């Protein structure tokens, strides 16, 4: 089989214009199986827009999007549940997929919220809801995961654990991940490919090449380029969902 078969989604010179203003322009990227591609950039730089282009949410776009899978899990940046909807966590898990009870339980357990299964979705805290969103996206064992700031509002301990989980899932399922994150530490340590956006692609490549790029320094400041050295160390432990440290066997 050709290499092409590993590509899950491919964007070629894509862009979106809304009310005569480019939200983002000239973005090319591809996500392959088992690969984590991360979008970084300041607020309003078009990260979420790029993710939505890849997902096919925007209809009138410039350029070309090729999708090679329909099994997609999406954690949007913002989602609000209308109070008129009586919906429990378990109903939400079944939103776009047919799952067995066990599959629901397992996914919720992975993100540490299995005790909330029968709770009303509206009564969850921001962090709890975020964990449910991640559980829902991974429960269907997707080929492609699109995570738009997946750990926003999650407590400090949980944040690391969830990033570990995301990396673990990409390895276990062999799925591709398109990640949007402001957490440069995580991005630089866990990512295969980084795109630095500011309305267009400023620079891209492996984390090692990106941090050395002058445009990256311009965008994030000098301190950001020291990140890699700070975080270049081997993990000797993992974090369970409640934050306790487990030594790696």
């Amino acid at each position, binding site marked *: 089989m050709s290499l092409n078969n590993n590509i899950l989604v491919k964007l070629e010179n894509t862009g979106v214009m809304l009310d005569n203003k480019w939200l983002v322009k000239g973005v090319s990227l591809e996500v392959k199986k088992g690969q984590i591609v991360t979008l970084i950039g300041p607020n309003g730089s078009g990260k979420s827009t790029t993710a939505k282009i890849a997902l096919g*949410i925007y209809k009138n776009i410039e350029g070309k999007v090729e999708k090679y899978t329909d099994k997609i899990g999406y954690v*949007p940046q913002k989602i609000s*549940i209308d109070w008129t909807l*009586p919906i429990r966590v378990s109903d939400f898990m079944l939103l*776009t997929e047919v799952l067995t009870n066990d599959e629901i339980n397992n996914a919720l357990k992975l993100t540490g919220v299995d005790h909330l299964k029968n709770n009303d979705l509206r009564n969850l805290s921001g962090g709890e809801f975020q964990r449910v969103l991640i559980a829902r996206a991974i429960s269907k064992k997707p080929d492609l995961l699109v995570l738009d700031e997946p750990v926003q509002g999650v407590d400090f301990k949980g944040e690391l654990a969830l990033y570990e989980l995301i990396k673990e899932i990409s390895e276990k399922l062999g799925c591709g991940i398109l990640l949007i994150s402001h957490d440069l530490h995580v991005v630089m340590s866990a990512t295969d490919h980084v795109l630095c956006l500011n309305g267009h692609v400023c620079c891209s490549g492996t984390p090692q090449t990106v941090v050395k790029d002058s445009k990256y320094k311009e965008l994030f400041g000098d301190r950001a380029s020291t990140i890699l050295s700070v975080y270049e160390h081997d993990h000797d432990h993992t974090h369970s969902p409640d934050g306790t440290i487990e030594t790696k066997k």
Partner: protein
Amino acid sequence: MFDDFFIRALFAGLGVALVTGPLGCFVIWRRLSFFAGTLAHSSLLGVTLAFSFDINISFSVLLISSAVALILLRLQKTTKLPSDALLGLLAHSSLAIGLVVIGFLSYIRFDIMGLLFGDILAVNKKDLLVIWVGGAIILLILKLIWKPLFASTVNYELAEAEGMKPEKINAVFTILMAAIIAISIKMVGILLITGMLIIPAAMARNLANNPKQMIIISIIGGLLAVVLGLYSSLEFNTASGPSIITAALVLFILSMFNIRKFKQLKK
């Protein structure tokens, strides 16, 4: 059995309630109450066109309501007006055009009251067949599109991203709305069909804690409202359509009472 006008009315009402129950839930969830009203208002134009060209009323109402829904979608994309303004514009202008057209049809004697409030007691066997067959088709389609429809109700972008095709599903749902209005307009009338859609579902919202439960309670509420409304209209000699809606309102008020009591118990 269906020779008795009251039995016919009862079964017509039950047939409509079976369909308005689940559709009404979606109307509430998607905040489409005013949209349902707009479709209902536009159906007057459908009725008058049916008389002018001598075609089937349900068919003509379905056609006009669907057309109005499509015009709405178009206007939402091309104008900067908010949706509620557009709905008001369409509702009242189509109602007005309907009434103007009636003026031209001076050779036909119209029962405007009958159109506005329906006449469930005048339902004949053919109407009954339209309601039950049409209703069954609507429910079947609703069952088939349940998952994508519910997903796009909860979150449009999530549904789009995960391949639920919300745009197509929304169009199908709109046609289902037009269809239920088309088959029930003769019985509950233009002004009250929205009540049939909203009130039982609103009652169900007070009692349910998950979507499927809300749909079941909404159906039961609608069926109860029809039975209670029709029997009390017989008893007190009141107009039957409005009596059904009043019965639904009474059930809604009872459901509010239930919540308060439940909350007190919890304390």
